Protein backbone atom coordinates (compact mmCIF):
# COMPACT_ATOMS: atom_id res chain seq x y z
CA UNK A 1 0.00 0.00 0.00
CA UNK A 2 1.67 3.20 -1.13
CA UNK A 3 0.30 6.71 -1.00
CA UNK A 4 -1.02 8.23 -4.20
CA UNK A 5 1.00 10.94 -5.84
CA UNK A 6 -0.34 13.45 -3.33
CA UNK A 7 0.76 11.29 -0.36
CA UNK A 8 1.07 13.05 2.97
CA UNK A 9 -1.34 15.99 2.92
CA UNK A 10 -1.04 17.25 6.46
CA UNK A 11 1.10 16.90 9.53
CA UNK A 12 -0.09 19.20 12.29
CA UNK A 13 0.94 19.23 15.96
CA UNK A 14 -1.22 21.41 18.18
CA UNK A 15 -1.88 21.85 21.90
CA UNK A 16 -4.81 19.69 23.04
CA UNK A 17 -7.25 22.43 23.94
CA UNK A 18 -10.66 23.60 22.68
CA UNK A 19 -9.31 26.89 21.30
CA UNK A 20 -7.23 24.92 18.75
CA UNK A 21 -10.19 23.09 17.24
CA UNK A 22 -10.96 25.81 14.73
CA UNK A 23 -7.36 25.70 13.47
CA UNK A 24 -7.66 21.92 13.14
CA UNK A 25 -11.00 22.15 11.29
CA UNK A 26 -9.66 24.77 8.87
CA UNK A 27 -6.54 22.70 8.11
CA UNK A 28 -8.51 19.48 7.63
CA UNK A 29 -11.10 21.21 5.45
CA UNK A 30 -8.39 22.61 3.13
CA UNK A 31 -6.78 19.19 2.73
CA UNK A 32 -9.99 17.30 2.15
CA UNK A 33 -11.20 19.83 -0.39
CA UNK A 34 -7.86 19.60 -2.18
CA UNK A 35 -8.44 15.85 -2.47
CA UNK A 36 -11.62 16.53 -4.43
CA UNK A 37 -14.23 15.68 -1.81
CA UNK A 38 -17.60 17.33 -2.27
CA UNK A 39 -19.03 19.84 0.18
CA UNK A 40 -21.13 17.33 2.14
CA UNK A 41 -18.35 14.77 2.52
CA UNK A 42 -15.92 17.51 3.50
CA UNK A 43 -18.27 18.82 6.21
CA UNK A 44 -18.81 15.30 7.55
CA UNK A 45 -15.08 14.56 7.66
CA UNK A 46 -14.29 17.87 9.36
CA UNK A 47 -16.94 17.07 12.00
CA UNK A 48 -15.53 13.58 12.58
CA UNK A 49 -11.96 14.82 13.03
CA UNK A 50 -13.16 17.60 15.34
CA UNK A 51 -15.06 15.06 17.44
CA UNK A 52 -12.06 12.73 17.59
CA UNK A 53 -9.84 15.61 18.76
CA UNK A 54 -12.47 16.55 21.36
CA UNK A 55 -12.40 13.00 22.67
CA UNK A 56 -8.63 13.30 23.08
CA UNK A 57 -8.96 16.64 24.88
CA UNK A 58 -11.80 15.53 27.14
CA UNK A 59 -11.18 11.84 27.74
CA UNK A 60 -7.48 11.14 27.09
CA UNK A 61 -6.07 14.34 28.63
CA UNK A 62 -9.15 14.87 30.88
CA UNK A 63 -9.21 18.55 29.94
CA UNK A 64 -5.79 19.15 31.50
CA UNK A 65 -3.52 21.60 29.63
CA UNK A 66 -0.07 20.67 28.36
CA UNK A 67 -0.98 17.76 26.10
CA UNK A 68 -0.54 17.66 22.36
CA UNK A 69 -2.30 16.13 19.38
CA UNK A 70 -0.61 15.20 16.12
CA UNK A 71 -2.92 15.05 13.10
CA UNK A 72 -1.74 13.41 9.90
CA UNK A 73 -3.68 13.01 6.67
CA UNK A 74 -2.52 10.67 3.92
CA UNK A 75 -4.16 10.61 0.50
CA UNK A 76 -4.26 7.26 -1.30
CA UNK A 77 -5.93 6.56 -4.65
CA UNK A 78 -9.23 5.50 -3.15
CA UNK A 79 -9.14 6.69 0.43
CA UNK A 80 -8.05 9.25 2.95
CA UNK A 81 -6.32 8.02 6.10
CA UNK A 82 -6.47 10.22 9.19
CA UNK A 83 -4.08 9.45 12.04
CA UNK A 84 -4.51 11.17 15.39
CA UNK A 85 -1.78 10.62 17.95
CA UNK A 86 -1.84 11.74 21.56
CA UNK A 87 0.62 11.26 24.40
CA UNK A 88 -1.86 10.67 27.21
CA UNK A 89 -2.04 7.41 29.17
CA UNK A 90 -3.17 4.56 26.93
CA UNK A 91 -6.95 4.17 27.01
CA UNK A 92 -9.05 1.05 26.73
CA UNK A 93 -10.77 1.21 23.29
CA UNK A 94 -13.71 -0.67 24.78
CA UNK A 95 -14.56 2.45 26.78
CA UNK A 96 -14.96 4.48 23.57
CA UNK A 97 -18.36 3.46 22.31
CA UNK A 98 -21.23 5.38 20.71
CA UNK A 99 -24.46 5.62 22.61
CA UNK A 100 -27.82 4.30 21.48
CA UNK A 101 -29.41 7.15 19.53
CA UNK A 102 -32.83 6.27 20.90
CA UNK A 103 -31.53 7.13 24.35
CA UNK A 104 -32.02 10.90 24.09
CA UNK A 105 -29.50 12.57 26.35
CA UNK A 106 -26.96 15.37 25.99
CA UNK A 107 -23.68 13.42 25.64
CA UNK A 108 -22.17 10.54 23.72
CA UNK A 109 -22.78 11.67 20.15
CA UNK A 110 -19.21 12.37 19.06
CA UNK A 111 -18.19 8.72 18.71
CA UNK A 112 -21.40 8.02 16.78
CA UNK A 113 -20.53 10.81 14.32
CA UNK A 114 -17.01 9.44 13.84
CA UNK A 115 -18.23 5.91 13.13
CA UNK A 116 -20.95 7.15 10.79
CA UNK A 117 -18.55 9.24 8.72
CA UNK A 118 -15.52 6.95 8.67
CA UNK A 119 -15.38 3.55 6.97
CA UNK A 120 -12.83 2.22 9.46
CA UNK A 121 -11.67 3.33 12.90
CA UNK A 122 -8.86 1.58 14.73
CA UNK A 123 -7.29 2.32 18.11
CA UNK A 124 -3.68 1.26 18.58
CA UNK A 125 -0.64 2.40 20.47
CA UNK A 126 1.60 4.74 18.49
CA UNK A 127 4.84 3.11 17.23
CA UNK A 128 6.91 5.56 19.26
CA UNK A 129 5.28 4.40 22.51
CA UNK A 130 6.66 0.85 22.45
CA UNK A 131 7.71 -0.13 25.93
CA UNK A 132 5.71 2.43 27.85
CA UNK A 133 2.07 2.98 28.75
CA UNK A 134 1.67 6.34 27.11
CA UNK A 135 0.00 7.34 23.91
CA UNK A 136 -2.89 6.47 21.63
CA UNK A 137 -3.16 6.32 17.87
CA UNK A 138 -6.59 6.59 16.31
CA UNK A 139 -6.49 5.66 12.64
CA UNK A 140 -9.58 6.52 10.60
CA UNK A 141 -10.17 5.64 6.97
CA UNK A 142 -12.65 7.30 4.66
CA UNK A 143 -13.03 5.85 1.17
CA UNK A 144 -13.31 8.39 -1.62
CA UNK A 145 -14.40 8.09 -5.25
Amino acid at each position, binding site marked *: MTPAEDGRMLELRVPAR*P*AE*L*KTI*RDAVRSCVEACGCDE*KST*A*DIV*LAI*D*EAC*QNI*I*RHAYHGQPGGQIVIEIDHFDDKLVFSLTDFAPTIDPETVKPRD*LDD*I*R*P*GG*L*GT*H*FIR*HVMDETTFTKPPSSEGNEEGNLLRMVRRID
Partner: protein
Amino acid sequence: MEHAVREEQGKLVVSFQGEVDLEHSPKAREVLLGAVKKKQDVLVDLSEVSYIDSSGVASLVEAFQSSKKAGSSFGLVSVNPAALRVLELARLDRVFTIHSTLAEGLGGGS
Protein backbone atom coordinates in the same frame (compact mmCIF):
# COMPACT_ATOMS: atom_id res chain seq x y z
CA MET B 1 -19.77 32.43 18.38
CA GLU B 2 -22.09 35.29 19.16
CA HIS B 3 -25.56 35.19 20.58
CA ALA B 4 -28.61 37.38 21.21
CA VAL B 5 -31.76 36.91 23.25
CA ARG B 6 -34.93 38.88 22.61
CA GLU B 7 -38.60 38.54 23.38
CA GLU B 8 -41.12 38.33 20.57
CA GLN B 9 -44.82 37.71 21.02
CA GLY B 10 -44.28 36.30 24.50
CA LYS B 11 -41.56 33.87 23.41
CA LEU B 12 -37.85 34.10 24.01
CA VAL B 13 -35.91 33.98 20.76
CA VAL B 14 -32.29 32.89 21.24
CA SER B 15 -30.09 33.43 18.21
CA PHE B 16 -26.60 32.07 17.74
CA GLN B 17 -24.14 33.13 15.06
CA GLY B 18 -20.95 31.42 13.95
CA GLU B 19 -19.44 28.18 15.18
CA VAL B 20 -20.90 26.39 18.21
CA ASP B 21 -17.97 24.13 19.03
CA LEU B 22 -16.33 22.80 22.20
CA GLU B 23 -14.76 26.19 22.88
CA HIS B 24 -18.09 28.01 22.75
CA SER B 25 -20.72 25.43 23.72
CA PRO B 26 -20.39 26.12 27.49
CA LYS B 27 -21.60 29.67 26.76
CA ALA B 28 -24.37 28.37 24.48
CA ARG B 29 -25.46 25.97 27.25
CA GLU B 30 -25.52 28.79 29.80
CA VAL B 31 -27.60 31.02 27.49
CA LEU B 32 -30.05 28.23 26.61
CA LEU B 33 -30.57 27.01 30.18
CA GLY B 34 -30.94 30.64 31.32
CA ALA B 35 -33.71 31.14 28.76
CA VAL B 36 -35.50 27.92 29.71
CA LYS B 37 -35.30 28.85 33.39
CA LYS B 38 -37.57 31.83 32.73
CA LYS B 39 -40.37 29.35 32.05
CA GLN B 40 -41.26 31.01 28.76
CA ASP B 41 -41.51 29.24 25.44
CA VAL B 42 -38.10 29.29 23.72
CA LEU B 43 -37.24 29.43 20.03
CA VAL B 44 -33.62 28.92 19.02
CA ASP B 45 -32.68 30.58 15.74
CA LEU B 46 -29.90 28.59 14.06
CA SER B 47 -29.97 30.37 10.69
CA GLU B 48 -26.52 31.91 11.23
CA VAL B 49 -24.87 28.84 12.76
CA SER B 50 -22.27 27.70 10.25
CA TYR B 51 -20.99 24.81 12.38
CA ILE B 52 -22.20 22.85 15.37
CA ASP B 53 -20.57 19.83 16.99
CA SER B 54 -21.72 17.22 19.48
CA SER B 55 -21.09 19.55 22.42
CA GLY B 56 -23.32 22.22 20.86
CA VAL B 57 -25.98 19.62 20.10
CA ALA B 58 -25.72 18.41 23.71
CA SER B 59 -26.52 21.95 24.90
CA LEU B 60 -29.67 21.94 22.76
CA VAL B 61 -30.71 18.52 24.07
CA GLU B 62 -30.17 19.56 27.69
CA ALA B 63 -32.22 22.76 27.23
CA PHE B 64 -34.94 20.82 25.41
CA GLN B 65 -35.19 18.35 28.28
CA SER B 66 -35.23 21.16 30.87
CA SER B 67 -38.05 22.90 29.01
CA LYS B 68 -40.09 19.69 29.09
CA LYS B 69 -39.66 19.50 32.84
CA ALA B 70 -40.60 23.19 33.15
CA GLY B 71 -43.70 22.65 31.02
CA SER B 72 -42.68 25.20 28.38
CA SER B 73 -42.09 24.64 24.69
CA PHE B 74 -38.70 24.55 22.95
CA GLY B 75 -38.31 24.77 19.21
CA LEU B 76 -35.62 25.38 16.63
CA VAL B 77 -36.14 27.81 13.77
CA SER B 78 -34.46 28.40 10.41
CA VAL B 79 -31.84 25.72 10.97
CA ASN B 80 -28.83 26.30 8.72
CA PRO B 81 -28.22 23.29 6.41
CA ALA B 82 -24.82 22.62 8.02
CA ALA B 83 -26.40 22.42 11.48
CA LEU B 84 -29.35 20.40 10.17
CA ARG B 85 -26.96 17.80 8.77
CA VAL B 86 -25.47 17.30 12.25
CA LEU B 87 -28.93 17.02 13.83
CA GLU B 88 -29.82 14.45 11.18
CA LEU B 89 -26.67 12.43 11.92
CA ALA B 90 -27.76 12.38 15.57
CA ARG B 91 -31.33 11.56 14.49
CA LEU B 92 -32.43 14.56 16.54
CA ASP B 93 -34.23 16.17 13.60
CA ARG B 94 -37.09 13.84 14.60
CA VAL B 95 -36.88 14.81 18.27
CA PHE B 96 -36.75 18.60 18.09
CA THR B 97 -39.63 20.68 16.81
CA ILE B 98 -38.11 22.48 13.82
CA HIS B 99 -39.83 25.49 12.26
CA SER B 100 -38.71 26.58 8.82
CA THR B 101 -39.17 30.27 9.67
CA LEU B 102 -39.29 32.42 12.77
CA ALA B 103 -42.80 33.56 11.81
CA GLU B 104 -43.93 29.93 11.79
CA GLY B 105 -42.37 29.35 15.19
CA LEU B 106 -44.00 32.44 16.64
CA GLY B 107 -47.36 31.75 15.10
CA GLY B 108 -47.97 28.10 15.53
CA GLY B 109 -46.88 27.23 19.04
CA SER B 110 -44.59 24.21 19.03
